[in-house]
């Protein structure tokens, strides 16, 4: 039973990690129907920014909570700026182009950003400082569930709820939904579509940055390539849950996390990815729009 619980918690952490990245993917897709392949790179840039800021602040001798808050804030601001810029440069000019063009542009942006960080920083793995302190109340269970893991799981849940509320009830949230439904119509009733899309990218990138800081803290090392692998898994999770759906992204990510964790625990880690993707195929056969996705009815 203990073993099951440990695997369950491990899967929960892993799923929450995927979810933090998947939320940004799914949100951007929901609004502009674009798979933002550069999302993983925004996540990686967030982690790098936090590392640089945290290193500087450590030299200045700030306490650990201040470092965590400032580094996370810096990562969010910086990544948002990247997300905003990437949209303006690579996606906006292609908004009315065939769907394949922005997709290729997104892949290009992903490769560009990877190589940019590779050249500007280093190809080596860099140690990422442990920014999240060990909470005293977690001490008795820390060998099965650490403080950092608790923070990741809690953040994912909070972000999911806030995001859902934001899209349901705020004005900009309503404008987002309107834009998602019909861009031209939204424009006609006076919604600034450009602004809505920019805000979407900024929010998506902020989430990626937040994920970058928490995940890098958990793993303890970063390099220019981390965004790619994490991005692929998060994308899978978003598709599994129904791309465009926010609770769906979290659900898909958790299912993916648990599948991998239990497959490793009870079968063999050799087949971890095999199980994960076999599950994806199975779910897509029976629910082509994903678990919580709405099947689109084609307007004829």
């Amino acid at each position, binding site marked *: 039973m203990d073993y099951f619980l440990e695997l369950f918690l491990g899967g929960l952490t892993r799923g929450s990690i995927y979810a933090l990245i998947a939320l940004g993917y799914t949100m951007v897709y929901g609004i502009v129907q674009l798979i933002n392949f550069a999302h993983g790179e925004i996540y990686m840039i967030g982690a790098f920014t936090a590392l640089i800021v945290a290193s500087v602040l450590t030299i200045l001798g700030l306490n650990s909570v201040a470092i965590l808050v400032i580094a996370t804030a810096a990562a969010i601001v910086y990544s948002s700026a990247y997300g905003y*810029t990437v949209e303006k440069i690579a996606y906006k000019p292609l908004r009315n182009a065939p769907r394949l063009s922005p997709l290729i542009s997104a892949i290009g942006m992903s490769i560009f950003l990877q190589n940019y960080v590779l050249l500007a*920083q280093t190809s080596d*793995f860099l*140690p990422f400082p442990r920014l999240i302190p060990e909470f005293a109340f977690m001490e008795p269970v820390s*060998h099965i569930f650490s403080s950092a893991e608790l923070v990741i799981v809690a953040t994912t849940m909070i972000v999911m709820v806030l995001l859902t509320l934001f899209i349901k009830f705020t004005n900009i949230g309503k404008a987002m939904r309107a834009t998602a439904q019909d861009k031209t119509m939204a424009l006609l009733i006076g919604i600034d579509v450009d602004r809505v899309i920019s805000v979407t990218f900024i929010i998506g990138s902020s989430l990626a940055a937040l994920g970058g800081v928490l995940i890098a803290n958990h*793993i*303890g090392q970063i390099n220019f390539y981390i965004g790619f*692998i994490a991005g692929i898994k998060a994308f899978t999770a978003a598709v599994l849950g129904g791309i465009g759906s926010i609770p769906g992204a979290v659900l898909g990510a958790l299912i993916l996390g648990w599948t991998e964790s239990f497959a490793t625990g009870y079968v063999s880690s*050799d087949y*971890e990815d095999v199980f994960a993707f076999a599950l994806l195929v199975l779910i897509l056969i029976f629910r082509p729009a994903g678990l919580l996705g709405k099947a689109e009815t084609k307007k004829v």
Partner: protein
Amino acid sequence: MKKLLLFAVLAAMFVFAGCSQKPKEEAKPAEAPAAEAAAPAATGDVIKIGVAGAHSGDLASYGLPSVKAAEFVVKDINDKGGLLGKKVELVVVDDVCKPEVAVSSANKLVSEHVVAVLGHICSGATKAAMGTYLAAKIPVMSPSATSPELTKSGEYPNFFRTIAPDDSQARLEIDYITNVLKLKKIAIIHDKGDYGKGLAEFAKGFAEADKKLDIVLYEGITPGAVDYSAIVQKIKQSGAEVVLYGGYHPEAAKIVSLLAKKKLNVKFVSDDGVKDDTFIKVAGQYAEGVYATGPKDVSKNPLAIEATKKHKDAYGEDPGAFYLNAYTAMLAITNAIEKAGSTDYDKLTNALRTEDVETPIGKIKFDDKGDAIGAEFSVYQVQNGAYVEVQ
């Protein structure tokens, strides 16, 4: 206004890039003092030694250092009057590390009547060329071909090497766990890659043959994954006392950290891919006590220092891969010719097997199979943030 903002953001991006730009390592183009060392003696008898390996193509960086090493050794010998009263001449051929090219390279060397060959560089190319050399009775010494088959199969009595074979790390790790750490339950984990999995398979084979260790877990992990807690829990569940990991340092660092965080009291033994300072940097305090095997430390060997200095003086940079192994091989070949007093195949191979020679990697000679005795791996342990040789 918007354009201005966009511009500001773009500018910020490049400032970031500018600030963090690391000073690039000086990569001077090597102004090679050409192969003058290999210049043929105008007339009379010369002793020809072949140098084969990848000198162009994407693996050239593995092969070119051995040419330079051979040139330095030959230049020294010729400056002192040559070998057996004759000048030594190098015949350099490029096999691009491709087995099919290696065979024609070998044929070329045979037709040039070389007495011995330094090379080839890649195991596959070496294997392909060996038949040709064996038929022509030419001893071959590789500085870098690590495939165990080359020596262990006994098919190539004319093959020698100055690098330890792939399985010797696994052998050393298993012996260390059995005899020094005196542990019994072992979990063997690998990263599914050629290197890591190959090593893990050798280790598994040795452990099974010895019957002293109990393999409680044998599994591959996915490199680059965000979380390894499931495999760590599985290690815990298996009751392993020691983890043997075949792979590279990024995953090793993640696993070692998790083992410590999950409060598992197991020893961690790994390979050359983990014996890297980045591992200590990344795993930090969790790296303490980790064992890793790696080539014996030669940084204090006077011959190694001298050989490296020669390269630095001539090319202005540190030598590349397998340079010292090639330097060693060239010394071993020329020494054997001198000791044998002849270039006859039987006398030469006998001298290689019986005569000790001082080289940059220590005092070596060769065993019956052709592996260098003395070119072994050592066990290192992380102590106070640095790898220390423990055996």
